[in-house]
């Protein structure tokens, strides 16, 4: 059985993507001075509402199938299949966006080698480690998340020690800017809930809720400190807006070459946690979907170490191909907006599911209950719905993120309605109860 430490590291690691540094810059641009790190902490409080929804659902049905089960029981089975496919595909989008940021960082550090080639080597190394089993990937996740959060905090504190924020700084925008910054800040935490598919591996049912909350606290402190450090060096993030790797610029400005390479290694660990955690959890999710033939059954093939190898390698290859498209087109913001939109809509959906399952299954034990009561949960759902719509309608290109999500939904819906029945016709041995 897994220790609480792994729940914390998996949750924190999946939230800590390399694209978070870009979000930190955006927060600082929207509201400067002390308000930037305050916005990130306020966003952390907001995300706790979603976390407690996941905690209640996870306690109710602690299963690796997670949202597949919760939506199926709280709404209906067909929506559960469609939502599961779309949700799994957002992991690909986040991995591709992180691959893009890492490629940019490599491109600066080692200009004579194509950045995407180095990213491919990193993904290949992480895939190879994952093929050796869940324990190896768990150890990588623990180590990466520890190094990432501890060194990010240490770096930021060192910067603030030498360049303290003045006691009072003018705000760059009005209160509207602050709340916009909070909305962007929420996306620093997204992905924390991907630890829930590990629920069966913990003896104590409260490990996942505890792990998620501790992880959110650590992510809040680490990124609030980094944003404050960034503000101390670049008030209002002026001069960082055009950089794909602002953390490297801040590193060099703070500590010269040591700071630059420190942040380069940190960028590698953020991408490492995203790739490792994403491949580890998403491949098992895909395995479960393939076993029930929501996806082609070949994706359920296991290697000798009982790792869903085909799903894992397929996801790695798809995310790299997507990263290649992003590097060529430089439309990484599109992936971030779709990923953020899907995550926010999923958080809104968890509010609906919590309320629905309380009505449908009132007597089933709930080791953890969502915060806020019925109206608080509903209000949280409305906030996340608004954030999701905002993310999908924002960004570059008219309605491009909403269009991409609509395409994903149409493909998933079409597959569940038309493609999947063809696979399930071959089930000669199995009867339904």
């Amino acid at each position, binding site marked *: 059985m897994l220790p609480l430490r792994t729940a914390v590291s998996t949750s924190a690691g999946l939230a800590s993507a390399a694209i978070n540094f870009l979000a930190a810059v955006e927060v600082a641009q929207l509201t400067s001075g002390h308000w930037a790190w305050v916005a990130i902490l306020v966003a952390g409080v907001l995300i706790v509402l979603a976390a407690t929804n996941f905690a209640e659902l996870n306690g109710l049905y602690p*299963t690796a199938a997670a949202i597949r089960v919760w939506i199926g*029981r709280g709404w209906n*089975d067909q929506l559960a299949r469609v939502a599961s496919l779309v949700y799994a595909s957002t992991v690909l989008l986040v991995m591709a966006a992180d691959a893009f940021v890492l490629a940019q960082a490599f491109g600066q550090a080692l200009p004579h080698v194509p950045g995407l080639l180095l990213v491919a080597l990193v993904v290949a190394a992480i895939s190879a480690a994952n093929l050796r089993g869940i324990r190896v990937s768990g150890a990588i996740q623990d180590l990466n998340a520890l190094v990432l959060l501890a060194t990010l905090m240490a770096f930021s504190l060192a910067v603030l020690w030498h360049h303290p924020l003045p006691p009072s700084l003018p705000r760059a925008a009005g209160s509207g800017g602050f709340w916009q910054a909070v909305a962007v800040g929420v996306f620093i935490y997204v992905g924390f809930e991907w630890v829930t598919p590990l629920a069966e*591996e913990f003896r104590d049912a409260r490990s996942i809720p505890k792990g998620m909350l501790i992880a959110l606290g650590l992510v809040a402190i680490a990124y609030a400190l980094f944003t404050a450090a960034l503000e101390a060096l670049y008030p209002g993030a002026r001069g960082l807006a055009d950089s794909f790797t602002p953390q490297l610029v801040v590193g060099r400005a703070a500590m010269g070459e040591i700071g630059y390479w420190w942040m380069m290694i940190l960028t590698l660990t953020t991408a490492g946690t995203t790739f490792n955690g994403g491949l580890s959890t998403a491949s098992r999710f895909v395995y479960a979907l393939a076993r*029930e*033939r929501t996806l082609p059954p070949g994706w359920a093939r296991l290697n000798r170490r*009982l790792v869903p190898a085909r799903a894992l390698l397929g996801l790695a290859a798809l995310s790299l191909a997507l990263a290649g498209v992003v590097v060529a087109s430089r439309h990484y913001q599109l992936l971030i907006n779709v990923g953020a939109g899907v995550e926010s809509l999923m958080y809104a959906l968890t509010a609906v599911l919590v309320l629905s399952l309380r009505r449908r299954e009132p007597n089933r034990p709930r080791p953890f209950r969502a915060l806020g009561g019925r109206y608080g949960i509903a209000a949280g759902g409305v906030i996340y719905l608004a954030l999701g719509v905002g993310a999908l309608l924002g960004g570059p290109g008219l309605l491009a993120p909403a269009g991409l999500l609509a395409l994903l939904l149409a493909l998933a819906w079409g597959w569940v309605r038309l493609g999947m029945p063809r696979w399930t016709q071959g089930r000669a041995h*199995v009867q339904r*109860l």
Partner: protein
Amino acid sequence: MSQNLEAVLEGFCLQCNQNSRLRDMNRDWDRVVAITSQGEHATPLWIVCRQGELTLHRHAPGDEADLEVEAPEEVLRAVFSGQLSPTEPYNRGELMVRGSSDDLMRLDIITLLLWGD
């Protein structure tokens, strides 16, 4: 009339033990699996795997269970007799497990090798 759960699990162990491929695959998988049907008076049954051979126990075998499986009795009977793929009740939230994903995958593969998917 359908068989009771104990008879179904006896049959499951027998089928596993008669399958040379499974015996070989499970040679290094020494595990204790507790199987509990949901209900007021439900008590677990235990499948113990030692050196590739499965045996059914009515009482706790001494070692702590590595994998716990819980579901309504009709679901357990259907899954362990090959009438139902475990994935379906699992994805409906009727079949709950607790243990490492490696062990869960192993149990899934055993049913797959015995009865196909």
